[in-house]
Structures are given as structure tokens and as C-alpha cells.
């Protein structure tokens, strides 16, 4: 059986499973559609949250980000998990107690202000739409590579599947499909990692293998990796090379942004009780940690494998020959990935060998001169292919590759569905019911939620097919908006009784505007190329890159909200009582049927 057939079997079987779940878990009421009837077990919700959260970026890109930078990109590991501590301690239990359906609804009620609700809805929709574009393009790429169909066909198949379970099942359908998608994606991620860890270190647990012994050399794995990458002129893998202040701020921004992303927060509305919301955040992190503890091992081991493939005699010997790349089955993956345009090499000096080294390093330039090299000959290595190509690089059996294909799609589809749900609930509940047609019946609202979902899928598919040029930049935007506007508003709404309507609106707008302006100053106004005044290499404020600015935006939001609240009318008594009631779990059951 050839590889494409195996891939089709794996992907086809997983899709059949998702559709089956969709038929079983149809939504009958708005409570089903927005919050899965609030009957989801905390462990089940934890698993669904993990799938919801772990996107194409976590599954496909993160290990590559760590592999090619090393220690400095630990920021992603700490940032994207540390946010769950904030979510569990500062937001999830109280928002569950509040017992409504959307994040913006809490902001609107707590700050007794339709304007605050509208600002929150806009932030929510912009953050979710920018995020969903990346997921949809990810679906297209994964299909294109593994199933040999065009990106367009792949994306359309993906959209039809999401349509099936999201439009009919709403939160209920999405929740149970996400559970299945989590199982697929975690197997797809860990099984190849276990194989590779066994090959390199003899330890079946990748997280332990990372700190274990590299069997071929007898050295500790990380020491071996540091040695061979520095011998090729790259910076030491375990060393801290970047700016410390920016690293701190970037980590903090990712944490606050994670805690403020609406599609993650709304998952905690689905559990029956406040106590369950607390447990559920822990379970979510358990399931996320299975991938996040494995990712740094995947990154380090892949970097080691790739480097050794290019230097089969060791870094001081001869580089791999062009014939070997063409004939040796261990190098077959290179030809496959070359076709995608994500991998490229060129024998610049015509010596029949491919030298992979850092040609910007002075010592390596001296060696290149002595040996007649003409620059680094691995001309293109897109870090996103690392996880997808990893099983092929390590020569694993065909079914593992099929599983990785299904896993990458599961990661992208589950996140896309969660985001689409956040968008459609905001449109139907906050805009249609909250603003334009408050008298709408339950049936009418359910229908409008389904229509909003269908329209969102069509828009997301269109944007996935025609991604705006700035698609890659927009993840920073989504995190920036969540960190600077949504998280502070929610936190102040719960932990302070002093912040009033004007303070909240002024705070959200101030946080939003400074963050947007800072991002646009560095990435171009509305991401139009060449309209930027600064670059992230030489940022406006000290060493603060535009991707790290979310935390600063959050501080601006907090300060503005306090100052404006202190100068305007105090919070009315009934709102103080609302805050008091959100703080205690008792009565969450009655809030269920509002």
C-alpha cells in the first residue's frame, strides 16, 4: 500500500468519527448550542479545552520554533501553559458562576454598559477571525501534503466537516468532536516522539529522554546537541542569547493573552458547577501538558537528527553527498518536501556535497575558505515542516505518517470549530439578541446562531483560500487584543467593585489602541508592507518587541480604568451585589436556567 492510501485511510476514518459524533450530539436548545446544556463532565471539558486550545501552531509550529532557537523559545512553553493558572485562579470559576453564554455578556452586565459589551464583542470577533485564518490555511496545507489533493479541495473538505458538526451540534457537537480530536492529535504527536526518543536515548518517555543520554555518543543528549550545533557555527542550544527583559515580557503577554482568549474561556461555561470549573482547568492543563512536555524533546531530537543526516561522518568530516540524498532511502523525505517549496538545497560550490552550516559565523567562514565552501547549501528549511516531516526523517513506519496527517488536521479543525463557535455566539447572542432583536424567541435565537455559524464558516473558508498577506502576523494581534482588552476587563470586573462603566470602556479602549498602534508601528499600518516606522529588531521602546506588547497594553488598561473610575460616578449598589454574588459559588445551579 502506498503512503497516500494509508494517509487517506487514517484521515478518512477520523473524519467519519467526527461526523458520527455530530449526528449523535445535535443541539436542541440555545443552552445546548452555547454551553452544551452545562452538562459536560470536568475531565471531558478539560480534554475538549485542550483540543480547542492546541491549534495548528501548537501541533505543527511549536517544536520547530524551539528546535531552531533552543532555550530562548521556551517562552512559548511557559507562556501558553502559564495562562491556564491565571484562567483557573482569576477567571473561570467566577464566569461559570455568572452563568451566561458569552464573555462579552459578562462585561456588558458587570459594567452596566452596552458600549462595554460592544467593545468586547468587537475585540472578540477581531481576535477570533484573525486566529481562524491560520487554522484554515493549516487545514489546506496538511491536506495538500498528505493526500495529494489541491489546497483548495482540502480546505473545502475540511470546511464541510466543520459545518456538519458545528452548525447542527453547536457547543454540544463541538465539545464531543473535540474530545475525539484530542485523542487523535495527542496520539499523532506522542507516538512518533516515543519512537524517536527510543532510537536516540533508549528512554520511551520523550520528556525524560531529552535529559537522558544520547546512546550513539554516550554523552548527555543536550550536551551532544550543544556541541554539534556550535561546531557548525550556530548558537549554543541551551544558552540564553536574546534579551532578558523582552523574554520576560513576551512570556507574560502570552500568559495573559491565553487567559483572555474568548474561545477558551467559554469552554468553562459548559460544566455543571463552579467547583467543576476549577477542576476542569486543571484537567485541561494535564491534557495540554502531555503535548507541551513532549514538544521540547521533539524539537531537540529533530534538530540532532537533521544535523547528523547532513553530517553523516560527524561535523568535522565530509558533508552528505548529493548522490546519497538521491539514493539513500533515509533521505527520501527531502525530495517529498522539496516539492512543497518548504525545503530547498543547492550545491553552490559544485563539490557534489551539501554543506549545512551557519555562514554568518566568523570561524565557519574561515573553515569554508579552507575547504572551498561557498555558503550554506541547505538554502531553505521551513521550521513548520519539522513535526510533519519528523516521522519520515526518523524512518518510522507508514502508519505513523498517516496518523500524523490525521493529527495535524484534528489540531487545526478543533481550534477552528472553537473559534467559529465564539464568533457565532457573539453575533447571535450579543448582537442579534442583545442589540437588534431582544424579543427574539429561543427558537429564533437558535436559528440565528446556526445561520451565524454557517456564515462564519463561509467567511473563514474564503479567508483561508485567499489569506491576506498579513496572515502570519495576525496571531500577535489576536494575543495582543486578548491580553490588552479582554483579560483586564474580566479581571477587574471580578476583583474590584470600584471599576465603573466609564472606567471599563476607557480602559479597554486605551489598552486596545496603544497595543494596536504599537503593533502597526512595527508591522506596518493595517499590516500593509513598508508602512512601519520601526522593526522588531530595533523597537520603539527599549527592547520591547511588538509581539511582547500585550502585557504593556494590559497595564495601560488597568491604570486607565482605575483613574477614570475614581473621577466618575461610583458603581451602583445592585452591581456591587452582582460582583459579590459572582464571588461565591452557592447558587450556580439557579443561574443555570436564566
Amino acid at each position, binding site marked *: 500500500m502506498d503512503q497516500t492510501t494509508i494517509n487517506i485511510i487514517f484521515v478518512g476514518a477520523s473524519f467519519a468519527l467526527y461526523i458520527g459524533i455530530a449526528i449523535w450530539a445535535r443541539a436542541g436548545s440555545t443552552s445546548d448550542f452555547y454551553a452544551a446544556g452545562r452538562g459536560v463532565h470536568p475531565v471531558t471539558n478539560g480534554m475538549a479545552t485542550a483540543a480547542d486550545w492546541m491549534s495548528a501552531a501548537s501541533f505543527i509550529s511549536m517544536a520547530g520554533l524551539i528546535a531552531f532557537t533552543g*532555550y530562548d523559545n521556551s517562552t512559548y512553553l511557559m507562556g501558553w501553559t502559564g495562562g*491556564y493558572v491565571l484562567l483557573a485562579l*482569576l477567571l473561570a470559576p467566577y464566569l461559570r458562576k455568572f452563568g451566561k453564554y458569552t464573555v462579552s455578556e459578562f462585561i456588558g452586565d458587570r459594567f452596566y454598559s452596552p458600549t462595554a459589551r460592544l467593545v468586547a464583542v468587537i475585540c472578540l470577533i477581531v481576535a477570533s477571525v484573525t486566529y481562524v485564518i491560520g487554522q484554515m490555511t493549516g487545514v489546506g496545507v496538511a491536506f495538500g501534503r498528505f493526500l495529494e489533493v489541491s489546497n483548495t479541495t482540502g480546505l473545502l473538505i475540511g470546511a464541510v466537516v466543520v459545518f456538519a458538526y458545528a452548525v447542527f451540534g453547536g457547543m454540544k457537537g463541538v465539545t464531543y468532536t473535540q474530545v475525539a480530536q484530542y485523542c487523535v492529535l495527542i496520539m499523532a504527536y506522542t507516538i512518533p516522539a516515543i519512537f524517536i526518543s527510543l532510537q536516540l536515548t533508549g528512554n520511551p518517555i520523550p520528556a525524560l529522554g531529552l535529559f537522558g543520554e544520547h546512546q550513539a555518543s554516550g554523552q548527555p543528549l543536550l550536551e551532544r546537541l550543544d556541541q554539534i550545533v556550535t561546531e557548525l557555527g550556530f548558537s549554543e542550544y541551551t544558552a540564553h542569547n536574546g534579551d532578558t527583559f523582552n523574554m520576560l515580557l513576551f512570556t507574560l503577554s502570552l500568559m495573559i493573552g491565553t487567559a483572555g482568549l474568548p474561545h477558551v474561556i467559554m469552554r468553562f461555561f459548559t460544566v455543571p458547577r463552579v467547583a467543576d470549573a476549577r477542576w476542569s482547568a*486543571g484537567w485541561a492543563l494535564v491534557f495540554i501538558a502531555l503535548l507541551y512536555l513532549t514538544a521540547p524533546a521533539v524539537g531537540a531530537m529533530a534538530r540532532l537528527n537533521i544535523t547528523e543526516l547532513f553530517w553523516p561522518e560527524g561535523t568535522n568530516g565530509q558533508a552528505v553527498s548529493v548522490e546519497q540524498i538521491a539514493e539513500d532511502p533515509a533521505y527520501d523525505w527531502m525530495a517529498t518536501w522539496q516539492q512543497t517549496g518548504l525545503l530547498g538545497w543547492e550545491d553552490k560550490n559544485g563539490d557534489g556535497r551539501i554543506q549545512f552550516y551557519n555562514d554568518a559565523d566568523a570561524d565557519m567562514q574561515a573553515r569554508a575558505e579552507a575547504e572551498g565552501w561557498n555558503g550554506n547549501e541547505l538554502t531553505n528549511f521551513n521550521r513548520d515542516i519539522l513535526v510533519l516531516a519528523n516521522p519520515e526523517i526518523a524512518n518510522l513506519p507508514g502508519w505513523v505518517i498517516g496518523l500524523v496527517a490525521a493529527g495535524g488536521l484534528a489540531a487545526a479543525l478543533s481550534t477552528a470549530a472553537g473559534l467559529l463557535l465564539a464568533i457565532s455566539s457573539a453575533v447571535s447572542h450579543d448582537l442579534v439578541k442583545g442589540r437588534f432583536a431582544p424579543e427574539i424567541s429561543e427558537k429564533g435565537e437558535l436559528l440565528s446562531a446556526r445561520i451565524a455559524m454557517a456564515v462564519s464558516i463561509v467567511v473563514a473558508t474564503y479567508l483561508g483560500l485567499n489569506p491576506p498577506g498579513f496572515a502570519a502576523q495576525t496571531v500577535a494581534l489576536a494575543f495582543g487584543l486578548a491580553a490588552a482588552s479582554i483579560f483586564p476587563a474580566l479581571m477587574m470586573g471580578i476583583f474590584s467593585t470600584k471599576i465603573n462603566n466609564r472606567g471599563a470602556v476607557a480602559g479597554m479602549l486605551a489598552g486596545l489602541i496603544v497595543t494596536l498602534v504599537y503593533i502597526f508601528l512595527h508591522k506596518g499600518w493595517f499590516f500593509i508592507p513598508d508602512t512601519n516606522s520601526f522593526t522588531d529588531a530595533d523597537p520603539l521602546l527599549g527592547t520591547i518587541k511588538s509581539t511582547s506588547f500585550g502585557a504593556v497594553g494590559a497595564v495601560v488598561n488597568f491604570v486607565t480604568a482605575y483613574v477614570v473610575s475614581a473621577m466618575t460616578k461610583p458603581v451602583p449598589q445592585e452591581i456591587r451585589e452582582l460582583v459579590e454574588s459572582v464571588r461565591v459559588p452557592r447558587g450556580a445551579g439557579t443561574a443555570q436556567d436564566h
Partner: protein
Amino acid sequence: MADKIPTDGVAYWKANVRLILISLVIWALVSFGFGILLRPALSGISVGGTDLGFWFAQQGSILVFLGLIFFYAWRMNKLDRQFGVDEE
């Protein structure tokens, strides 16, 4: 709102905020502290070919985060019962 605010609601909220503050100090210590700022100070302790700070940045902080969330959930659910504000 049907629920009444218990008379010792203030004490309950104070206990909660104290617990959150302690948890967040640990949260910051393992990630921003051990994982980044204090890494040079911990460089003497070696772990599998590198130092303790690297381990905290890529593994330890995540494990501590997990412990923190479960500890908080257990402690708060107990506090809810002690103060009589749990869900019946």
C-alpha cells in the same frame, strides 16, 4: 439573584485572595524566576547535560503550574464547604 450573601462572605473572599496571591508568587517564581531571571544563579545544579534553569523553562514550570491549579481547586472546594458557600 436568588442566592443570599453569607455574613462571613468577607472572610471567605479574603481567604481566597490570599490563596491566589500565594499561588501566583509560586507561579511567577518557577517561570520568570527559575526559568529566566534566576537561571544563572542555578547554573551550578546540572540536570542531564544542562542546568536546572533550562529544565524549569522547558519542563519544571509546566509541572508546577499543574500542581498549583489542582492545589487551588482542592483548597477552594474545601473553603467553600467551611464557609458554607458551596453548591448544594
